[in-house]
């Protein structure tokens, strides 16, 4: 059972490595959006410190969403997806492999990049560590929930915009607890509660979302 997950993950990672431009474009989108905010609201350090968690998290949501349409679209185009659906393994496990690969090439680099951008916002070391940790914990949930949206909009007119309409409202809890943890740390309160809830969201999304996405894929392939 784990074999199929690993095999799909390895395949997707290999494909991503051969098209690194796609991956870096998403990362630079993240960097640019985060850098635009100080230009829009002014360089005052106190204000920026207060805004940083929200801005970084919203930018991470948008960057993750940008990379979602490609999650299944290329495989649909060259027929791989049909072959995977016909394979004797549950399609949910295939999707799980793709979700994990998606996280490794989008969520993980975003989380590792975040502390550097956080310095631009004059965040303290504690806040930077918490920010990175929340992104590490929260982005798997984004990949998981996003897979449902990507599968539902597969091959649909105007899929990209539609995807954001479907997925962003479902991202709200992750945003609230992710940015809230950093806020709580900055305010001197503990962030353990936020971390627990974020972990719960991540496990629930990665565990259940692939099966919903698999059901949506089967409809798209009919």
């Amino acid at each position, binding site marked *: 059972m784990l074999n199929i997950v690993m095999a799909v993950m390895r395949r997707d990672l290999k494909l991503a490595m051969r098209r690194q431009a796609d991956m870096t474009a998403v990362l630079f989108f993240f960097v640019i959006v985060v850098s635009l905010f100080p230009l829009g609201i002014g360089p005052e350090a106190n204000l920026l410190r207060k805004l940083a968690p929200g801005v970084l998290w919203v930018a991470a949501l948008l960057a993750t969403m940008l990379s979602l349409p490609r999650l299944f679209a290329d495989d649909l185009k060259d027929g791989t997806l049909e072959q995977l659906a016909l394979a004797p393994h549950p399609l949910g496990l295939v999707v799980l492999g793709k979700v994990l690969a998606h996280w490794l090439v989008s969520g993980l680099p975003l989380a590792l990049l975040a502390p550097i951008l956080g310095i631009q916002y004059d965040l303290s070391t504690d806040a930077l560590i918490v920010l990175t940790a929340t992104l590490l914990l929260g982005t798997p949930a984004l990949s998981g929930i996003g897979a449902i949206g990507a599968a539902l*909009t597969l091959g649909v007119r105007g899929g990209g915009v*539609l995807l954001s309409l*479907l997925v962003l409202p*479902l991202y709200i809890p992750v945003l*609230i607890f992710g940015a809230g943890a950093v806020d709580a740390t900055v305010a001197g309160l503990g962030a353990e509660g936020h971390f627990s809830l974020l972990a719960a969201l991540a496990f629930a999304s990665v565990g259940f979302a692939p099966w919903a996405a698999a059901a949506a894929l089967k*409809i*798209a392939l009919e």
Partner: protein
Amino acid sequence: MNERLINIFRFASPATFYPLAGRMIPWFVALTVLFGAAGLWLGLFVAPTDFQQGEGYRIIFVHVPASWMSMFIYLVMAFWAAVGFTLNTRLSGMMTQALAPTGALMAFLSLWTGALWGKPMWGAWWVWDARLTSELILLFLYIGFIALTSAIDDPRRADKAGGILLLVGVVNIPIIYFSVKWWNTLHQGSSVSLTRSPSMAAIMLWGMLLMALCFWMYSIALALVRVRGIILERERHTDWAKAILSGETAR
């Protein structure tokens, strides 16, 4: 028992449901008018002026029923989506699509009347209260559903994709609601609270309940009208639908 079941499933076919819906619509319209008239009379003329909020509180008779219906309709849509997946009935998908615009309208109406109510009472059109925020997110969910189903040309695929979205949404609604609620309390909360005094005058409660029934009946009537349109559009290749469309049988 067995015959009862067969009777229910007989109306799962669009061909038999179409005339049934046509016969039911006038009844629900009549009930809407009846409950609406009674509710408005109680609410606008009989119910006393609130000692704190003056006459302005009377918007409650539209606001609360609209909020209730916006939440209830989403649950009903999710129910039909679940029925559609388990029994594979075509009518269930049509029902979800017929209900969606009414649900979105109710969510919008709830936000709009809420803003109108908030301005004189709190001095602000909008506050980031937990209930307002989750109602706004509910409106987003409705819009997402409508956008998804109208972007897919094949109606069966649209039904099924929409159904998955509804079921995912209905699982997420409590999560979203509680996260927004906790977010709100963590951010020191708004200075105003939506909680009214618990001792609401009985006459106000009755007015509100009657208006809720009116909105409920209105939603059913409108959904039935809309589902009839959807049935005709999708079944236009069948003989019975052609007969109706060409005006041979007046139903």
